[in-house]
């Protein structure tokens, strides 16, 4: 990881923990490149909904 990436990562770490978790998981999925954009959208919607339910 280069220095600027580290800065960007630090910016992400300023976000709420729940948001960070979902973003990082999505970034890994994007990096692995084995899901379509549509599948990625379905995954994040599902995760966000689960997160909201669990928060309640």
């Amino acid at each position: 990881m280069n220095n600027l990436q580290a800065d960007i990562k630090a910016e992400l770490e300023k976000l709420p923990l729940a948001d960070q978790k979902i973003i990082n998981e999505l970034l890994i999925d994007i990096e692995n490149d084995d899901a379509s954009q549509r599948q990625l959208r379905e995954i994040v919607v599902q995760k966000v909904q689960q997160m909201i339910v669990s928060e309640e």
Partner: protein
Amino acid sequence: MQLEKLKISNFRQFEGDNVLEFGYGQQNVTLIKGTNGAGKTGIFRAIMFALYGDHYLEQDTTREDIHLVNSKLLNSTGLPMTATVTLYFRHNDVSYLIKRSLTEFKSDNKTSVATEGAEFGKFLADKQQYQKITDNIDQVRVEVNNILPQNIRKFFFFDAEKLDLLSGLQNGGSVAKSIKTGVFDLLQLSNLETASKVFNQAARDQSKELSNQLGDQQFKELEDKIETTNNDLSRLREEKSQIIDEIETAKKEEELIKQQIAQNRDDRAQAEILKNKEETLSSERYALNEVINEAIGRIDDTAIDVVLGSVDKAGIKVENIQNQRSDKFAKAILTESLNNKVCALCGNDLSAHPENEEHIQVLLKKFQVSEISGVLNIVSNSLMSANSSSQGIQAAVTRNYQSIVNHEDKINKLEHEIEQIGSQITMSQNELKNITNKEQHTLPNVQSNISTMTEKIGVKKDQITKLENKLQELEAQQEQVQIKDNNLKVKRDAVARLKRIGKEIDQIIDTYSTYSKEQLEKQMKVIFNQIITAEDRSLISDIKISNNFELSVIGKNGMSILNDISMGQSQMLSLAFITALATVASKGRNNVDFPLFMDTPFGRLDVENRTNLIKNIPNMTSQWVLLVTDTELTEGTELPVFKQENRVGKVYSLNKMDDGTTKIVPEEI
């Protein structure tokens, strides 16, 4: 990332075990020499295989013919053979090892892959203890990607002759995409950008779905309004972005005109002096003409001088006659002298000189008035008058002549000065006129346009702020709509959350994209100026990267010359871009944290470019590994510079023993 050692076994033409180490620190240059076909690209291939498991390089055209296991062994033994490549490297003060192997076998004259393996591990503090992290090929890929992502490797490991990073340079089309992709890939903003799209699109999809499922008229209306507002916002943001680009272009033009005005200030001052001198010269020529005309007008008057010689002779004759005559003195003078006993003319005392008194008495006795005396007086007076007039004419002619000489001197002097000033002015008259025109007309117009566009930006900003507030209000209203169904409530909250995360990501991208663009432009200029030739430096005045990541190379005339640059210049530009990109990524560090691995680096470059690279690249990167042919590393040109710079840590020669065997032999520089 710092390469330490490469072990190659039965890989490509490297039969048996071969090892090479890489220079680092102050001796961070590694030279790997080899003739064509000796296996330089085999080293490149071994590194790419070790790091990413690549069987092919981007430059490979005939993929089916590339096999990684040593073909000589494969053919001679008829048994499955294994090629192994182990790369040792350091990253963030930790030493790592990555090892890949590939077993191939030959059957019916066809070579096939049997198995492939990978291992990734690290050395503990004392470097004696090795700890395997994983031998799962997928996991190894993830580990390596964390260090040097696969999509950015092309910036650090490349065949310089085929360096096509800025391949769009010749047609202008894909340069912006290359630059933007480069920045976004290296900073991993690309993935973040994809993430933003996923969240924002998911939010829109969910919102529509919710609206349809809810069937609530108020919610639907709000949804429609939100969609319209979002569309308006996108349009306004796009317009604002366009105006910002236009302002940037106008500012570039303004800066350029100012530069041209400043650069040519001397020429223009000289031109002003030249203009004044030319005006003076014109006046002098006019005055000379006047004097000449005056002199021509005197030609009639000077005719008297033609006869003046005989007039002079007549005057002498008349004077002689007058002198010889007895009536030379008036009678009253003679009488007065005798009466007073003192000569009235010379004051001589006649009492003391009786001989003189006697002479005067003789004169008085002989005295008689002659009729010719009057005539002689008239002739004498006329001659005196003519002589006086002639002297006046001569004086006037002398003055005319002197004036002509003076004017001619001044004219000669002015012409010489004008010639000298003219030779000091490097710009043509047209160019000077053009600059003056730019200063008087274009510059005020451009400045006025910038001012108008800045006002427009202000208006757009206000409109955007209003729409953003409206959107926020609409979304808040939508959130207030009573939803009884719990599932739909969750969906609505999910939409809000998805939107929020999308915005958070957009903000990070926006900040770092702008920052990176500015830094990249700055660094690229510095590096490009260090590595190009003095001649190119005089041709290229600036490099710009716009907000849309469009690259412009500006010539000295202020025009874009991106489409006119040579292949060599394009390669230097690409190198400057790569190095600048890595410098930006390594923010704050003195050099780039990645090795620069170049195959055939100097092929297209002239001597000055080569020298500049040899002198500068070792200071810009943590390591520079060069795969060079004998024509790229000559005793006469490159080697003396390498020796003088003293940055070469390791030198190897690829000795081709036969078609299937190359040995890597260490050498001294």
